[in-house]
């Protein structure tokens, strides 16, 4: 009895591990309140709003919120009131998928913004494609999402309902490798990733490009998301004599890693992607983050003249989260959906098509044709659904804040 209890408990523990990964939480109850004069259309936004990655996730939610508020205030589409409904995916692919099902099941929903994580996007794409509903991610960077599994050899768009306002890791990884080799003059790098779609993909592209430039990848390792102790890894990094650590993943792990690495006596900078470009990285990692680097998509939000009022609104409303990484991209993604609705309504003699499926399909077509000046620059999509805006920026932690050190366009030489 006693032993079987232990065995039973172990089984339960494993079950608990799996179970805590599930569960979903809807923030707002949905309501279908279309009165005689105006039609209410819903735009779903899906991002991690609690737990891991929630700082950037909330930036996406409120970026979209401001876009919706602006459209309603300016009566961008006469006769239509837009409503934003937020879904929390907790950075879990399974939760993202059930959220996508909930969004497509909402008969007032015309499109979706999100998610934050490429791995979550993979499970959502199919759901939106079946419902012929547009999905625009402000932050997914994994190339496979738009260009197919064999994107390096033969590009093929898997889902024509999926778009993104962020550029791809192909460009981001190359841009980072170029800056590490030519800008920082680092010749040997230790590469770590978190095995997730985004992190592993980015680390791989970085490594390939860094080697192509003449640098040396001295060793690689992988971590699990949720890991806290990196003592063993830090010793390996120190022993490898690498002069740079490249990390593909999110700030939750990289902030701990950089702190433990510097405490452990390996004083080399950590260089990562847009997944760790957040103030939380600096807050969680403390002084150890000084000198660390990250690439981020686009140009710094603070330097965009068009984003000025956006940032003021964000701050004035006291929204939580960090708009710096994707807020402006989320705003643009949401605006693209709203403008597409406008185009559909205009083409239909100023009336909203009564069949929601018809409306959704037409919105997809119109999003593909998007061409306007957004907060982050020109918003337009190529034949794969990728943004045509390919600007990237390298940021470095200086005196406890991210500071832009280089902005440019990646060169795929």
């Amino acid at each position, binding site marked *: *009895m*006693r*032993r079987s*209890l*232990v065995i039973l*408990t*172990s089984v*339960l*523990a494993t079950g*608990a*591990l799996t179970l*805590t990964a599930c569960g979903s939480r809807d923030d707002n109850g949905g309501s279908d309140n279309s009165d005689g004069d105006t039609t209410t259309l819903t735009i779903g936004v899906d991002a991690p709003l*609690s*737990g891991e990655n*929630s*700082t950037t996730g909330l930036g996406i939610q409120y970026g979209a919120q401001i876009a919706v508020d602006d459209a309603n205030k300016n009566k961008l589409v006469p006769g239509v009131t837009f409503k934003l409904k937020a879904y929390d995916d907790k950075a879990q692919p399974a939760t993202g998928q059930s959220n996508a099902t909930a969004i497509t099941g909402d008969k007032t929903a015309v499109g979706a913004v999100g998610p934050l994580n490429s791995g979550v996007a993979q499970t959502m794409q199919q759901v939106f494609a079946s419902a012929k509903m547009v999905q625009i991610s402000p932050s997914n960077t994994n190339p496979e999402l738009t260009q197919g599994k064999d994107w390096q050899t033969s590009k093929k768009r898997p889902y024509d309902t999926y778009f993104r306002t962020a550029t791809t890791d192909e460009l981001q990884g190359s841009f980072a490798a170029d800056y590490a080799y030519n800008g920082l003059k680092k010749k040997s790098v230790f590469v*770590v990733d978190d*095995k997730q779609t985004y992190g592993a993909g980015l680390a791989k592209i970085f490594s390939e490009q860094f080697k192509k430039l003449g640098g040396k990848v001295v060793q690689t*390792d*992988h*971590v*699990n998301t*949720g*890991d*806290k*102790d*990196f*003592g*063993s*890894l*830090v*010793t*390996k990094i120190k*022993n490898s004599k690498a002069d740079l650590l490249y990390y593909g993943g999110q700030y*939750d792990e990289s*902030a*701990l890693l950089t*702190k*433990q690495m510097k*405490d*452990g*006596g390996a004083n080399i900078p950590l260089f990562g992607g847009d997944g760790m470009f957040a103030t*939380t990285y600096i*807050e*969680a*990692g*403390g002084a*150890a983050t000084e000198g660390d680097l990250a690439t981020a998509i686009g140009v710094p939000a603070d330097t965009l003249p068009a984003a000025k009022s956006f940032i003021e609104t964000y701050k004035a409303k006291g929204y939580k989260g960090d708009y710096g990484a994707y807020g402006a991209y989320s705003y643009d993604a949401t605006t693209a959906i709203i403008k597409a609705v406008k185009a559909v309504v205009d083409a239909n003699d100023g009336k909203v098509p009564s069949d929601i499926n018809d409306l959704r399909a037409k919105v997809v077509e119109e999003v593909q044709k998007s061409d306007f000046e957004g907060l982050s620059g020109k918003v337009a999509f190529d034949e794969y659904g990728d943004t045509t805006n390919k600007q990237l920026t390298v940021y470095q932690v200086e005196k406890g804040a991210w500071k832009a050190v280089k902005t440019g366009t990646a060169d795929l030489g």
Partner: protein
Amino acid sequence: MNTLPQQLANGLLLGSMYGLIAIGYTMVYGIVQLINFAHGEIFMTGAFGAFTVYFYILPDGTSMAVAVPLMLIGGGLVAILIAVGAERFAYRPLRGAPRLAPLITAIGLSLALQEVVRNFYPGADRAIAFPGLDTTHDIGSITIKDADIFLILSAIVCMAALAYFVRKSRTGRAMQATAQDPDTAQLMGIDTNRIIVIAFAIGGFFAAVAAVAYGLKYGNIDYRMGFLMGLKAFTAAVLGGIGNIYGAMLGGLVLGIAETLASAYIDEIPGMQQLGGQSWANVWAFCLLILVLLVRPQGLLGERVADRA
């Protein structure tokens, strides 16, 4: 550079932390045969208690030499309060129930504690920066920092105090008696309810010590920190022989060292590159657990108990 001494030190540190938490699992199991799955969350609340003392109560700029003992007291109080409260309100009403009932209650309690902290502690929806003890020392080829020394010392002191308490004190002996046979112990005039409360309180305090060490070492805490640590500590308790306090500490050390060495060296074995590195550490740790349980189902130091149903 020979990395083995450093890796052993890394493993020893991680293992001490597992061991400190595992004590809580093993003491409670030894006395009431309950696996208190909420113990990982008691560890987490201890960390938040200590952080509250540091951030909200102590004036800015308090020296760490003063702050750390006060954090231990604050974190310890919170953890003990929650552990004892859990016993009183969640487990005691189920004392006579089938064993699955308190087990499920424990899992529910663990989720409830996580959500309470996440929703009601200011800023707890993401990682909170914890003050660190980051001064480093080089001893030969080993680099350790003050937080590591704190961890090792507190593990030794706690373990020694516990051993003394259980063996020499009246309450400790009553505890042993209750573990052996609760009914007979009660007939001999031992207040078993009091003993059970003491077991929960000691477990809670040790978890809080581990939590303070965790915060000082890793520099941040979050509401989910107890889940994986709790699971690992439970594994350590089973590995060492659940019910045996020395086994819990030994199990923790073995688990910590095994994990660290596996992640450090397995990928250097030709043909094993794919199975090595940090991300496989847990896999190897659990393989070790299965192996040990195959050979010694009662755990490393566990006693074969045949007379208990």
